[in-house]
């Protein structure tokens, strides 16, 4: 499964080459052109079958994931680090990671409960006080394996949790490898429009890749594909959950970065209803996606975001439903076929 390969790939912001390689291998032969731009965006072009002039449709999914960067190598061989993108420190204790080009395995330190003081159990240990332990006995040994500026990501492996029902899978980086896998699946279809699949770099640090990709492509309209927040765990109050697992692709009306084009929201809703595909609206006002920069490119681009709902995103592990995944692919194919 491409999603599995993508989820397992190492690709923090600015270091998306492994993800790009997986995607390029999958896309070769299915698209008319594949290129990588200056910021590391992989752009696949699939020529439309309609008469010229054809609309240019950009489908964006970001290839990076939230990660860590090594900023110090201590005398005792431990590695100090900072987050690259929004990976919170409260998620990190005792997690397994891989570090650098050599993919050195390590563990983020955690004081065992025997040594913890009562107040330690109540507080979140700050990222400045955390370190990655790669088992090195001293600074010199660590420096032989890792250098400053190396990235680290969780070493979570993709796994199928349930074959039936919601068909759930777990893995890291579903935000946004789920979107990448949906976008890649679109390359199998034929559309009247010219399709540009942009696997954009550096979304998690400010939507940097998509900004220049949109400038280069100069699309007539754009879809950003995402793995978005689920907020459907048991709660007391009947207020404000965002998307729910298993309820279909989540369509964004508004988030912190943009207000979706109403015509494209309608297109998606019509495509879903005509094909019996379940869908939901993402709770407005939460998060930001590549649409935030794409819709402001040049003279403006009508844009919308569609997402596979994922539980626990921006954590070392998340869960999604393959039903939602398949329905997102189906919805995007149906929507693209409606554009001429």
């Amino acid at each position, binding site marked *: 499964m491409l999603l599995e390969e993508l989820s397992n790939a190492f690709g923090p912001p600015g270091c998306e080459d492994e993800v790009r390689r997986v995607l390029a291998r999958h896309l070769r032969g299915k698209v008319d052109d594949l290129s990588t731009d200056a910021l590391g965006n992989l752009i696949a072009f699939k020529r439309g079958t309609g008469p010229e002039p054809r609309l240019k449709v950009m489908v964006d999914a970001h290839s990076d994931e939230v990660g860590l960067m090594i900023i110090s190598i201590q005398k005792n061989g431990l590695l100090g680090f900072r987050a690259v993108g929004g990976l919170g420190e409260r998620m990190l204790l005792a997690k397994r990671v891989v570090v650098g080009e050599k993919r050195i395995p390590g563990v983020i330190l955690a004081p065992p409960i025997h040594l913890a003081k009562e107040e330690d159990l109540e507080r979140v240990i700050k990222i400045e006080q955390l370190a990655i332990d790669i088992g090195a006995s001293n600074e010199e040994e660590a420096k032989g394996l890792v250098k400053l500026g190396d990235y680290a990501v969780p070493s979570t492996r993709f796994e199928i949790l349930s074959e039936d029902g919601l068909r759930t899978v777990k893995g890291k980086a579903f935000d946004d490898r789920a979107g990448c896998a949906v976008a890649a699946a679109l390359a199998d279809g034929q559309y009247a429009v010219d399709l540009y699949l942009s696997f954009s770099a550096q979304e998690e640090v400010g939507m940097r890749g998509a900004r220049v990709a949109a400038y280069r492509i100069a699309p007539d309209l754009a879809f950003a594909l995402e793995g978005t927040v689920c907020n459907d765990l048991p709660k007391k109050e*009947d*207020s*404000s*959950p965002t998307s729910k697992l298993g309820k279909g692709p989540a369509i964004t*009306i*508004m988030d912190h970065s*943009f*207000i979706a084009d109403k015509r494209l929201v309608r297109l998606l809703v019509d495509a879903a209803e005509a094909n019996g595909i379940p869908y939901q*609206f993402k*709770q*407005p*006002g*939460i998060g930001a996606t590549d649409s935030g920069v794409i*819709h*402001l*490119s*040049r*003279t*403006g*681009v*009508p844009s919308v975001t569609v997402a596979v709902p994922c539980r626990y995103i921006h954590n070392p592990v998340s869960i999604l439903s393959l039903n939602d995944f398949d329905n997102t692919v189906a919805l995007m194919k149906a929507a693209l076929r409606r554009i001429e």
Partner: protein
Amino acid sequence: MKKLIKKLTEAYGPSGNEEQIREIIRAEVGSLPDEVRVDTLGSLIALKKGTGGGKRVMLSAHMDEIGLIVSYVDEKGFLRAQPLGGVNVMTLVGSRVQFADGATGVISPEKGDEMKKDPDLAKLYIDVGATSREEAQGRLGQAASFVRPFADLGRRVVAKAMDDRIGCVVLLEVLRKLKGSPHDIYFVFSVQEEVGLRGARTSSYGIDPEVGIAVDVTGSGDTPEARKLAMKLGAGPCIKVMDGGMLSHPGINNLLIGAAESNGIPYQMEVLPGGTTDAMAIQLARSGVPASCVSIATRYVHTPSEMVDLDDVENAVKLFLAFLGQPIEV
């Protein structure tokens, strides 16, 4: 002019939902411009061609207003909302809002006796009179604006959405009174300013102006215990020097000051800590544009009752006419 202010301020148009206000402004613009178009994000652009030898000048006032967007509908049909733009949550309690279809809602805190200085929007809900989730479900994702009638206080007027329909009024008056300017003037009624200057950004890329000026509201320091701001109502249009997002082009400002002084138009200089306007987006378009902003000093900005002085509005129109009648060399 009061009639026009009433018409524009009472219209519905939260960010991203400017269709209704755009049609009202399009009707007001009429056949005065040489070209009228709506760009990709929805800004209305009216071009009045010059007599020749002038610059491409972009004037921008935003059509959108702050509001709320429905983020959740509960079992009993009560709505929860997220802000569209910089909503002052304190002013929401007890307010009414309206939707694009004219439906009205009332905003209430969950527990009135627990109201504190800075209430949390998450603890407020909108009651649209629905009695079930099914009845109100269609409101999810819809935007609401304040409801508050225009009030004529004599030389001063008060309304919701004075920010920035008063700027739209200034542009419309300038368009009507403009005669014999050498410049090609693009009157831009922009969208989505309140959520990040988005309309002005793409409009200015498209227009590629040589000079840009926004017309917007600014704060005033002339109310009891107000923060220290030099701007006050009735002292003339404000020529912006700086705000939270830009430093105005000194050459443009000198021309504005010169136009005011040689025509006996009162003006004040504006330094606003925080906040910004479409001028920032214009200034940073493509390879950069000399830009400034003419502001109307306004009390109670981002509340449902924003107050301006009509003298300032009239003098802003005169200032633009004087500025646009002269060559612009910066």
